[in-house]
């Protein structure tokens, strides 16, 4: 099983994925919208975990037109859903609000609140198994 994790702050919270890794899941990491967008086009993953607020690129900033794209993660979700209705897509974020949640629900995306999440809980949510 493979998983794409998009989070610019993945290093600090990499402990969250440690228990999933222990089960043999391959995890690819992207830290920006442009990097992830390219990876999505190159191949498909079984599962996607995406942060809503991510940088556009690691080596340049947003143009003035893109300034209002507050949730670049949402853009990624749309890109995934265009070609892939079946994969499990999760949004892992502290920024999810009601409006975004509604859109995500419509796109069959589960929202996981970041903050007090235990790695074992995340494992259960992502893989649908009960912790032993």
């Amino acid at each position, binding site marked *: 099983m493979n998983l794409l994790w998009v989070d*610019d*702050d*993945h*290093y*600090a*919270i*990499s*402990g*969250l994925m*440690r*228990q999933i890794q*222990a089960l043999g899941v391959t995890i690819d990491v992207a*830290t920006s919208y442009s990097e992830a967008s390219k990876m999505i086009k190159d191949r498909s993953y079984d599962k996607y975990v995406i942060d809503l*607020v*991510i*940088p*556009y690129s*690691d*080596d*340049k*900033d*947003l143009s*003035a037109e*893109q*300034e209002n794209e*507050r*949730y*670049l993660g949402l853009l990624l979700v749309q890109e995934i859903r265009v070609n892939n209705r079946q994969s499990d897509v999760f949004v892992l974020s*502290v*920024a999810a609000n009601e409006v975004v949640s509604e859109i995500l629900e419509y796109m069959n995306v589960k929202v996981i609140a*970041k*903050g*007090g*999440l*235990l*790695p*074992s809980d995340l494992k259960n949510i992502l893989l649908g198994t009960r912790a032993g």
Partner: protein
Amino acid sequence: MADIIQLLKDFLPIEIAILAAIFIYLLLLFKGIAEKFISLSEKQANLAEIQASYLAQRLDAVEKTLGISDRAFDFQEKQIKKLQEVTQQQEIDISESLKAKQLAEMKLHEAEDKLQETIHSLDLKAQQVSDLQAALTRVEITSKADAILRLNHELLAHMQSVIADAENLQLAQELKLTPDELGSTARRILNQAELTVLLLQNTQLAVRVGDQDLYAQSSFSILDLIKGCMHLFDDWAKQKRISFRLQQSGSDDGFIITADKSKLRVAFSNLIQNAVKYSYENSDVVINLAIKDKLLYVTITNIGVGINSDEISKIFQAGYRGALGRDKSRTGTGMGLFVARSIVQAHSGQVRVAESVSLENGYKTTFEVTIPTSHRNSK
């Protein structure tokens, strides 16, 4: 008559004498009548003369009157001419007055228009002021809520890291964590806890800005302190493939200063955190230390999102986030630079930044901190 007859009868027969006497009598009578006529004529002539004289006098008087009249006429003509001139002048004056009046009216209209415009623009200004006040109130409310939300966001991110690593340590055996993994996990917990403390110190200092009671002095190595600050952001820098380069003018033991150590740790941590946050990947953050004439100079240079010339004055304001840093992923409380400058100023120092220089791979920005190596508290 009888006398005449008597006289004549001596010379002439009586009949003739009677006839002659009648004739003479008649002659005398005629003479008397003639004389009376003459006398009457004379009288009449006298009267005529008198009348003529009177007429002459009248004529003279009339002539005189005429003369007077002529003069009066001349005078009146002159007067009329004068009056005409005066009238003409008055007409000119009136015409000029009319023109002046029209001009004045035009100017009055213009002034009225301008007044209207001014009133209108004043109304507009008043409206703008009222709009601004309303916006300001909204901003105040939103910014307070925003500041709390940002702080909340940051704390949640740190806590998420700590909680995840802590559970993994708890399940270390089950997860078969290697000694290296154990070490790095513990280090990360420590680092996240330190960053949390930095966040809380910033919050405290942002609220109690300028409070001299918070400051205490000791002598320490600013070089070691800055190395410690850099260490706080090692993991983050590594993740962004950013290298720290520390440059110093002078030997390691030449950087002892007297100041508030914990506050300067917050100030330099904030400045270094700011440099890493706004750096692009694969770049260097260069920190330079020098002491000259009892002044400590520290410069922190990074390449990435720059600072506009018009926002240089704003970036040190509490809650300000850079205009060029459009990317919403650069989270933060917007307190870092504000607190850093407050701390440096409390040490009688300065934080300066110039407009970023555009390079091929981004904007080069340099913050320069100057602090007296021995600051005497003003208290």
